[in-house]
């Protein structure tokens, strides 16, 4: 074996810089081309390790579907939301798709939402609330105003990994101060809402 001769060293030293520049250009071009040319997103096929997933245990069933609701009626049920995140994220809840009635039924159905541990969609037994209620006896009409992640209630900080939280929801039909005429107008009225939980990574 011989030491690199002066000529070899000279040649290599001369081409090293242009070579690096070419490599640089190729890298930038390739990365830019791959990332920024228009393309269709094929969602879910190749999730990055950092993907986040939020699921609940409702199996597509509505939490409340109340027919023939009468004054003073109330009901309490739970739903468990599971976050699977590999980056620190925050989960918030809010309302979407409010169904309003012409007679203002949404002002009469008042909802309380608490968060805690234990309980499930099937059975609330074992639920233990943590902290004060997130929503305390608010009419559906007010909850419908909370309709974006930013204004959402909760603010559940999710650490990387799988974690879940149970939300206990209670509604009551409050007819305080309603005359019989207003009652008559309300018969058959229907109101509704969807609850959505959204998780966003913290950065």
């Amino acid at each position, binding site marked *: *074996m011989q*030491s*690199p*001769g002066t000529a070899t*060293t000279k040649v290599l*030293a001369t081409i*090293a*810089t242009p*070579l*690096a520049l070419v490599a*640089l250009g190729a890298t*930038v071009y390739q*990365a*830019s081309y*791959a*990332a*920024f*040319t228009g393309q269709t997103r094929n*969602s879910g096929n*190749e*999730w990055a*390790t950092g*993907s*986040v997933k*939020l*699921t609940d245990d409702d199996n597509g069933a*509505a*939490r*409340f*579907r*109340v*027919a*023939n*609701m009468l004054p003073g009626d109330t009901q309490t049920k739970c*739903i468990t939301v599971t976050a699977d995140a590999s*980056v620190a*994220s925050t989960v918030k809840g809010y309302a*979407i798709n409010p169904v309003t009635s012409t007679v203002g039924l949404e002002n009469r159905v008042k909802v309380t939402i608490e968060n805690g541990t234990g309980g499930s969609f099937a059975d609330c037994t074992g639920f233990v609330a943590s902290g004060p209620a997130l929503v305390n006896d608010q009419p559906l009409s007010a909850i419908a105003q909370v309709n*974006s*992640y930013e204004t959402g209630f909760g603010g559940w900080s999710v650490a990387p990994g799988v974690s879940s939280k149970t939300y206990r929801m209670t509604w009551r*039909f409050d007819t*305080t*101060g309603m005359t*019989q*005429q207003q*009652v008559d107008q309300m*018969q058959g*009225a*229907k*109101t*509704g*809402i*969807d*609850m*959505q939980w*959204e*998780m*966003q*990574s*913290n950065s």
Partner: protein
Amino acid sequence: MAATTTLDAVRGWAHLTVVLGARMYRVFLLGLVVIAAAPPLFGWGSYVVESGSMEPSLHVGDVVIASPYTEDQRIRVGRVFVFDDPATTEPHLMVHRIVERRDDGKYTTAGDANAVTDITPLPSSDVRATAVLLAPRVGHPVTWAQSGQWLRLAAWLLATIGAFALAVRHLEGESPRRGVRRRRPPGGPPPGDARDPGASKGASNGARRGGRSDAARAQAHTLAHMLRVRPPVATVAALLLAGMLACTASAGFTGYTRNSAMSWTVGQWTQPYVTAVLADSPHTLWLLDEQPGTTTAQDRSGHQSLGSYRPAAVLGQQGGLPNNPGSSIATGGGLALTGSYPIATAASHTVELWFRTGTQAGGSLAGFGSSTTTGTPSYEDRVVRMTTTGHITYGDWANGSLNVVTTPGGYADNTWHHLVVVSTSANGGRENTVIYVDGAARVSGLTSKVEYFSGYVRIGGGSGTSAFNGSIDNVSLYDSALPAQRVAAHYAAR
């Protein structure tokens, strides 16, 4: 000797490789930095990607070079854009792909690695820049600094400083370069630099200037060291400074779940008092809940047995039943309300109403008459009155000899009272009557003959004593005699 030659050869190649590698790394890094840092000089933006939802297109630490977006540019679906996160009013830049143009003119965005698209639609006014170039990984020091990964940052800094120091090493055959090399100290090369030909040249220079003092040599040595070490450090410091000024954009992850179609539908129901009354099939039930200005009193019994408010009536007063919200009427000391249709006399009948008065004037609470106007009707019977002392009487109307029953207690105490008068036919056209007040029978007995005519209900005014001056609520009329327990049930449902 052969072994030494081989060792020398390996050393020579290693030195060459390391120095050239360091030089290439330096060119590569500085090139990336220029690409990443130069755009702001001509109005473009550089954004360090700080999270991984755009993988595999963009990684954390990549620098996105983006040309500013103006409203007249076309937004092409499928391209990557830097935009103000529409999901928050906080300043928060996002770099995501636009995947859909919505019907409302906004756009749907998504991270390539997200299972779902971003929830809040993006208005074009929030778009800041179109991503054009990507400088891979060069923003890592910025993300490390921001996320507190000091160990990595320090390791990278050391490696880079080391590489930059190596890169300035002289190679055999290269012509002497400006700067450091020329100032090689005369006191000999630093350790590990023995094979540097520049060093031997320096040494020979030193031999030429052999007259210099040791102190001067040491000073020159130190200066040379500083100069040798400084360029890498200065370059890295400049890089770091550029990093501090870098703009970051989030490629945040999103997920959501929802519980849909919750609904509430109101069933058939009535107020408890109304339920109790309707259970006994009245032919008239006036709740008197109409608003002021209304002329017709609606019938809740289902028989369209309407009433007509008379000018004296004052509507919309506070209701009389605590658990059955609604309003009452004040009679205003005159005829307040009459039936719109005459009602034939029934063998058994019941009149039920709520009243309140604080005046001792007495007056006609309810009765039947052949007219609907103020003043005395031609025929009048079944009149319930309050005496001037607040007692309730029934039977006090002119049709043959009078048979009147009067409650022992008085009720002009300015509180609401439930009054039910139940009559069944007795011999000779007379009636057996029970007067209930507040759910309990207070007096019973034979009362005056009733007329056989179709009469209008008259509330608040009639012949004889002056009109009743007080409040009336929830008037119901039955063609039957309410049993005592039903009266009590009505009162209990108040």
